[in-house]
């Protein structure tokens, strides 16, 4: 589904990713771990299509198509979703209105009519329940004054609504207490499926106890320096990132 080959990318003339290779197939969950500054967030931002980032070498294929020239919204229409580490506050647009707009813009891109209001409402209720989101929450301005946990739940709620093929979860565990972590992880697990791939980007192993990955990759200095199965995460937790840095 996602095939990254020798990706070199960065922004403002600085190359941050120095030759990433990653192959993600439908149904798989990959974890990308790494110390601060290793390029984790850059990788997710580049795949999502931020226009300030430039690819200097290598390719990103999604379902076999080179997506380098596609804008972020076009990538979203193809089925790529990025859950933000720091979701942006949008005062004046409620959670419900935002997701309605997003759903209908995705449908429009596919040549479909707007989703009928009752169908939309039903879906919103269903997905909100999945993330234990209160209906009052849905009429608040998007992310404005939300707690860390509420923001992340809202991200996964949007993922549930948009049903992407590939979801990249950037530091979804940061700022979460144990209860919120459980709710978010449960939500993500319910969204796992044979046609959907998930890439979990995280600094800590903690989230991976809840969202158990099929593969773990360790990123350091813009390169994947080690790949393995879920046991790698435990080993990393035990030995710390210095172990990787020394080995690299």
């Amino acid at each position, binding site marked *: 589904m996602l095939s990254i080959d020798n990706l070199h990318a960065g922004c403002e003339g600085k190359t941050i990713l120095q030759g990433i290779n990653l192959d993600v197939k439908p149904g798989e969950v990959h974890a990308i771990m790494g110390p601060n500054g290793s390029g984790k967030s850059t990788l997710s931002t580049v795949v*999502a*299509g*931020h*226009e300030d980032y430039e690819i200097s070498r290598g390719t990103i294929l999604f379902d076999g198509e080179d997506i380098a020239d596609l*804008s*972020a*919204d076009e*990538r*979203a*229409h193809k089925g*790529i*979703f*990025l859950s*933000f580490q720091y*979701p*942006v*506050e*949008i*005062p*004046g*647009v409620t959670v*419900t*209105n*935002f997701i*309605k*707009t*997003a759903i*209908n*813009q*995705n449908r429009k*891109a596919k040549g479909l009519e*707007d989703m009928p209001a009752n169908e939309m409402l039903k879906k919103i209720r269903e997905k909100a329940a999945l993330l234990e989101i209160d209906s009052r929450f849905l009429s608040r*301005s998007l992310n404005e004054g939300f707690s860390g946990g509420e923001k992340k739940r809202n991200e996964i709620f*949007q993922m549930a609504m*948009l049903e992407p093929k590939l979801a990249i979860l950037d530091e979804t565990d940061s700022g979460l207490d144990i209860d919120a972590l459980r709710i978010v992880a449960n939500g993500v697990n319910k969204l796992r499926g044979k046609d959907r791939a998930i890439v979990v980007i995280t600094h800590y192993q903690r989230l991976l106890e809840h969202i158990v990955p099929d593969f773990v990759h360790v990123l350091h200095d813009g390169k994947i320096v080690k790949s393995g199965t879920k046991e790698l995460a435990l080993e990393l937790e035990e030995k710390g990132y210095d172990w990787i840095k020394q080995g690299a």
Partner: protein
Amino acid sequence: MDLKETLLSSYLAFDAQDGPQHKLQDQRAAAIEVFEQQGFPTKKEEDWKYTPLRNLIKTNYTVFPKEEVSLKLDEVKEYILQDVDTYKIVFVDGIYNAYLSETTHVGVDVCLLSAALTKPKYAATIKKYFNQIAAKDASLTALNTAFTKEGAYIHVPEGKLVEKPVQIIHFTTDKNPSLLLQPRNLIVVEKNAEIQIVERHQSLTTNESFTNVVTEIFTEQNAQLDYYKIQNDQTTASLIDSTYISQRKHSHAKVHTFSFGGKLTRNNLNFYHKDPEINSTMKGITLIEGSQFVDHHTLVHHAQPNSESHQDYKGIFAEKSTGVFNGKIIVEKEAQKTNAFQQNNNILMNDKASINTKPQLEIFADDVKCSHGCTIGQLDEDALFYMQTRGIPTKEARGLLTYAFASNVLQSVKIDSVKKRINKLIAEKLGVNIGFDV
């Protein structure tokens, strides 16, 4: 002959026409003298520094319509709120149009100023209120006073809650080119009374037109006024609106100004507090493009203790458009415990667009809360990217963000039909389908 001279000689004809027997003659004569001395404001005057009238007054406007024009409802339907039951006072080229109007004297007077000025039963109210709060020394207000003849007269008696909003609508047609309209409105809301008013000036032609409107409003004790100005005119139509509101104890006057069109629009919105414990609210959304120009000059004169004023103006300026915001708050020495808030936020969509924004606080009391904030910025790039990752294309994302920026001003709009209309106008201006209601 320049416009000033034309107007001065027109005044002689106007005065001769219905002057001598007219009870306003003295006031008119005094007013034309003020205008004669001051002329049109120039950029040398602080209050008009950023607002050039030079081009506007190059056109030789006439104050006399050549003919009375009739309009079919179908021709103007889109400019009149239809989905709500309202009283209507409609003027076409400055002349009252009975066919499009719905006035009343049942429970409330919603009628013509010309009638109120001539009929004896209104004499006491006219004497008490007419030209009492309008500035005598402001040349454009004086010009209006000099030519006062017609406008809306609304008198809400004590304790009356007027359920139907009143629409005051002025149309300009192509039958009377280069017309200078000078409507004069008088609105009195007596003790414990309530009313909602919607005012609109709409040109139906691409001929140049110029409206210099003056509105005097009095809210007596505990009266509630909700006033909406919808300014979405042709790019050949200019408007100078001077509104003077005099408030008594516990009254609340709210004015929303939606400026989406026109060539040059200047709003002088003035609140005068005559008692303690008064509330004044003024909000606005300005959304313009091309070489449009919109100026908001607000004044709140806090003269007595324990009063509040709230100002919230949002401006969105595209292309080469220009905005001005000048918010003057005076807090007199006696006006302790005043709460005065002022907010003016602007987004420039383009580097050729501009806004001159200036808070002007003159505070003589020592126990007050006054705050003001102006911001000028662009749309948040991070928010745009965030929205894109959810499949919302840049154009729609920009539209939605801009809409969101302005939308909190809409939350205080009490007439649903106005709210919907403004919502729709914003969406149209931004070229996006908002797809939901506020």
